[in-house]
């Protein structure tokens, strides 16, 4: 098993290690983390760069998911 740094900028802004399988793509990783959400609702970056959903995650990659819509207040 390889490990990546997963940063979820939704809600509490969780950041921590996550295990990935051999050959796992960023698209399947997203579906595991957000089964009820669409990838188009997020800005998804790997190592600070936008990638295609078919990108195969590597050990020690840094994956950031930031929601497109973040509600402010008054």
């Amino acid at each position, binding site marked *: 098993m390889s490990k990546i740094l997963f940063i979820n900028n939704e809600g509490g802004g969780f950041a921590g290690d996550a295990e990935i399988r051999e050959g796992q793509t960023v698209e399947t990783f997203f579906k595991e983390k957000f089964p009820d959400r669409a990838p188009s609702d997020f800005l998804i970056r790997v190592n600070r760069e936008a990638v295609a959903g078919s990108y195969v995650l590597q050990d020690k990659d840094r994956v950031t998911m930031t929601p497109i819509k973040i509600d402010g207040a*008054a």
Partner: protein
Amino acid sequence: MNLSLRLATRINDFVEQRVATTHVLGLPSRLHTRLQSCMILHSKTRKAREKGLAVAEKIVHKQLIADVSRLKRQLDVSSLNPPEPDKAPGVRDIYADIKAVEAEFGEYKWDHVRGTLSVTTDPITLKEVPLGPFRIHLSLEHFQNPSASDGSTYVDAINSNFSNGHPHPHVSEGGHVCLGDAIHSIRKTLEDGRVLDYFIILKQLLNSYDANGAYTPLESWGQEGEGSISCGDCGYDTSDYFYCEHCDCAYCDECYGSCESCEELVCDTCRTRCRSCDNSLCPGCNADNCKDCGRPLCFACAQKVGCDNCSSALCEDCVQKCVGCSTPYCKSCASTEIGDCKCEKPGQCSGCRENCDFCEVRKPGESYLGQPKEHPEFEDAETEVFGAPTPGFLPEPVVQENEEKCDTCTA
């Protein structure tokens, strides 16, 4: 050394300083709390033993044994999974973030006087209302104290498409961003030293709109009428407002309510709560304030509890009562009126000490809880009986021959 590298080094230093100061003990907070509890109980046990309070000592000691046992169990569990202390991200990661910021926003600007890093967004349009580009500022001091960002995240509007003074539905007249859902994630980016994520989250927030949490709805952007005001409390723009006569300010319908005593409408700023009964009060019904804590009291509660000595009003939390007759006192009067009896029975007023029940029945050399006295100062002449006294008897008071006698009862 180029600017990006200098900034990365400086940010890393700030994060390292914060991590160092917040992890001095290196003990998880739950264990730290339990350890403190054990120390307090140990101190209480020692004091109870010193004062000869056998029953109290036994109770506290039992609690101490239970707490030490819990602490031991928690230490055993945590030693299996030791928590990893926070680490600063390192200059390399922060440098990579700053370079990614340059790629994302075109460039960044460094204001060395204010210590802020800023980027400019693309022009923002929400629901077909053009708001123009915004300059987002990041104060480097926020890396030292991330929670400070909650009320001091600022943007500048480069376009001047304001409505009621607001450059954006979620930005105040002064440029302060109301973070809403982003409050925790912004704080976390600062804790972790993630510069790129900080700017991206704020960019996404500025590109989002929530009609329920907006200062000015986009539907009426730029159409402020003569009757529209900005709420004096939350800043919401509305034409349906309430005018508070106590502070001469106008408020939206979310920021005022009625006094529970007289039912007068009053704004939330002028409204207080009675410390004792928790009823909301207008300034007119705030009859008095507790002498000791200064919190407001309504008429009924101010009349109900007061110091017997100086007549000051007191709240339920601050009143101090004599354990004998329950007479209420304020803090300063209690310090002079309430004290321990010579038999060590605590918390009695001077009247109750003079007529202390226990003093009349106690055995010589015995304190309030039936423990032998250890302190010589309590072995006063009054309790000493010549010869072999019967327990419980005290010497008869000596009556002087030449004392004046009462005309009525001849005593």
